[in-house]
């Protein structure tokens, strides 16, 4: 601990940048590469093997992330046994590229932060793999599904284990690809194919930030590795730091569906539900939070960019919550809440060392309860012939008791009801937000209230109230293979809060994020917790009186509603804005350039040809075919020759 303190660079703002100084991996930790290699092998075998692997593909696909999880657990045990400052280890694999003064190695960095992510990805990932065995049992392409899930796990692990921004970029786009493939898994539906394309392209916009950040790093520091950048960061100008921070934020916005790049997440629900659970709730969408926390050594030097992160998080948490209120599609309601919860994480991450640990903490608990809820939603859809409209549910608690129970645990966790895991994580974030400024705190508090409202709505519409099932739908509990992961995730949602006990998680992350900063609050934390709980209960109460309490639910959403509701249903006009600002002008530009290329650029080339052809065509007309015309020309020529000869000889 004392050694660590020496490495910390104090700043005028009171924040510190923690350099990444890893040791070489040894012993059991030198097997870290297996964590990535196993799912990679799975993806390769399942995607290249073709139909031959159909009979055992799903089992093989499950085995790989479970294997990674086991290796991860072993590594975790190893790290736990080490001193805090020795918990950063690096395994160099090979030189990726080396040109001029820029060298990028293919190396894995295992530190407390990536360790938590490895466990989350492999753990929740394995559960979702198991769940998918049941969920996708009747799909002809189940093997391909598992191959692509494995591909996703591989890419996500590369993302969190890379020790270089270029390596992160590899995983970054890799998860984008996997997400693209999985959203478009049922690509015979136009909506799915379009949603997949939209997700990839919006993510690409965010990736611009990532690639520009890599360029800026190489130009400024001559390297893009965490170690190099974090070491040289204190010498860089604040402008550079701000630029880097904003570029990384742009990247994070794309991947984590933060405003203004949020539009793809709701459409992404077109994918199979396990995909929504794993990728669009538990892991991939949190990559942005990972990136911001990982880049703490950049944000430490740029208050501007930090503020930007906080603002983005705050806006998104409110936008997501409002959208969540208006959706009748259960998956879209959950997607709105995902946006909102990630907004909380970004808010926390933007606060700086005071919030990093809580961002990660909330990320973990959110991974548990949101995955559980999504899988629960999948279970409900499984039971109702893939109907996603909550107005067609109602009173499912009796038909699906396990699903109901696990979903309820998730519900209590997400609204932050004590003592469920979400209570601890969200409470700390709101606290930290108040510490940063009352406006952030108030926003986060209102968000918590809205969350309670719309989650209550989801709960009431789906499991309580009266039966509104369609004809021919006979809801039934899902098979054991699907409910087991639900139960495990529910348990984790219930007890996830233990991670904060005794400040364990803040201590664990200290080598990465620096020591937690105390923040001043206007009231004691206990009172604040009380206020938060009251606000949450208020939200629940509003939800109960709107949708519960014996009210009948219309089959179709009411059409004649206030502007606010219309806006929320239209995702606060995010798509309309994109269409008006980017898509239509883009289409116009394309059309205009097509015209320019065809008529002007190519027209010039062809026009030149036409000019030569035309003038020779005109000259050709001189060949009338009349001998006498030719003879006349000859006489003219002879005249000129004679005159010229005379002129020469006579002068």
């Amino acid at each position, binding site marked *: 601990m004392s050694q660590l303190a020496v490495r910390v660079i104090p700043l005028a703002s009171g924040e510190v940048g923690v350099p990444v100084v890893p040791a070489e991996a040894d012993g059991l930790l030198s097997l870290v590469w297996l964590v990535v290699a196993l799912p990679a092998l799975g993806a390769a075998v399942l995607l290249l093997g073709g139909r031959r692997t159909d009979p055992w593909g799903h089992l093989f696909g499950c085995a790989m992330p479970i294997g990674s999880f086991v290796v991860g657990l072993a590594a975790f045990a190893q790290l736990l046994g080490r001193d805090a400052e020795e918990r950063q280890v690096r395994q160099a694999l090979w030189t990726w590229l080396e040109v001029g003064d820029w060298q990028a190695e293919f190396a894995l960095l295992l530190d407390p932060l990536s360790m938590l992510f490895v466990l989350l990805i492999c753990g929740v990932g394995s559960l979702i793999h198991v769940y998918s065995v049941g969920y996708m049992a009747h799909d002809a392409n189940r093997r391909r599904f598992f191959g692509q899930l494995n591909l996703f796990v591989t890419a996500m692990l590369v993302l969190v284990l890379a020790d270089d921004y270029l390596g992160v970029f590899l995983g970054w786009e890799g998860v984008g690809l996997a997400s693209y493939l999985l959203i478009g898994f049922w690509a015979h539906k136009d909506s799915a194919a379009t949603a997949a394309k939209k997700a990839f392209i919006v993510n690409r916009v965010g990736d611009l930030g990532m690639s520009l950040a890599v360029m800026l790093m190489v130009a400024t520091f001559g390297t893009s590795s965490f170690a190099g950048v974090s070491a040289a960061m204190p010498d860089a100008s604040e402008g550079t730091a701000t630029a880097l921070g904003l570029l990384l934020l742009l990247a994070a916005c794309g991947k984590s569906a933060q405003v203004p790049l949020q539009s793809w997440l709701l459409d992404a629900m077109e994918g199979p539900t396990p995909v929504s659970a794993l990728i669009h709730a538990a892991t991939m969408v949190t990559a942005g939070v990972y990136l911001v926390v990982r880049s703490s050594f950049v944000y430490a030097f740029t208050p501007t960019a930090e503020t930007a992160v906080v603002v983005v998080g705050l806006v998104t948490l409110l936008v997501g919550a409002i959208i969540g209120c208006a959706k009748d599609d259960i998956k879209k309601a959950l997607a709105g809440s995902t946006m909102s919860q990630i907004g909380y994480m970004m808010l926390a991450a933007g606060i700086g060392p005071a919030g990093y640990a809580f961002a990660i903490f909330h990320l973990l608990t959110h991974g548990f309860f949101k995955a559980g809820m999504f899988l629960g939603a999948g279970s409900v859809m499984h039971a109702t012939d893939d109907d996603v409209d909550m107005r067609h549910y109602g009173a499912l608690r009796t038909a699906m008791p396990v699903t109901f129970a696990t979903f309820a645990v998730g519900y209590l966790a997400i609204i932050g009801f004590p003592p469920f895991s979400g209570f601890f994580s969200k409470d700390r974030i709101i606290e930290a937000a108040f510490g940063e400024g009352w406006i952030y705190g108030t926003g986060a508090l209102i968000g918590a209230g809205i969350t309670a409202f719309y989650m209550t709505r989801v709960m009431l519409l789906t499991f309580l109230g009266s039966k509104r099932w369609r004809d021919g739908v006979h809801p039934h509990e899902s098979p054991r293979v699907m409910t087991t992961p639900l139960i495990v995730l529910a348990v984790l949602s219930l007890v996830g809060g233990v991670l904060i006990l005794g400040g364990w998680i803040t201590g664990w992350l200290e080598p990465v994020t620096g020591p937690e900063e105390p923040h001043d609050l206007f009231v004691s934390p206990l009172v604040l917790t009380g206020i938060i709980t009251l606000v949450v209960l208020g939200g629940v109460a509003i939800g109960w009186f709107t949708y519960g309490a014996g009210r009948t639910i219309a089959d179709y959403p009411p059409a004649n509603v206030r502007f606010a509701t219309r806006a929320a249903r239209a995702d606060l006009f995010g798509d309309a804005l994109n269409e008006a600002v980017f898509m239509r002008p883009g289409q116009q530009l394309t059309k205009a350039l097509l015209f320019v290329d065809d008529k002007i650029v190519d027209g010039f080339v062809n026009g030149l040809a036409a000019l030569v052809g035309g003038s020779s065509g005109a000259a*050709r*007309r001189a*060949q*009338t*075919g*009349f*001998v*006498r015309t030719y*003879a*006349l020309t000859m*006489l003219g020529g002879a005249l000129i020759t004679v005159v010229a000869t005379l002129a020469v000889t006579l002068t």
Partner: protein
Amino acid sequence: MNTDHYLTLSALLFTIGAVGVLVRRNAIVVFMCVELMLNASNLALVSFSRAHGQLDGQVAAFFVMVVAAAEVVVGLAIIVAIFRSRRSASVDDASLLKY
């Protein structure tokens, strides 16, 4: 006798022949005009021959005559051939070889 006069005569005949080629359409008359031009040049050759006191000019005129004879034979044969197929001896009618 001055050579100049002969040359002037030769020039006049040549010019008249040339104009004839240009204005007449009957192929046979055109041919005659060409012959007139050849004869005009022959006259010049003979005149020069005398002026220089050497017979080479006359030899050249002789060759011109031979070539003219050959040319007339072939040319008239062509005219006959064309006339046989087109029933016309106008040079303007044979204008297919054009743009």
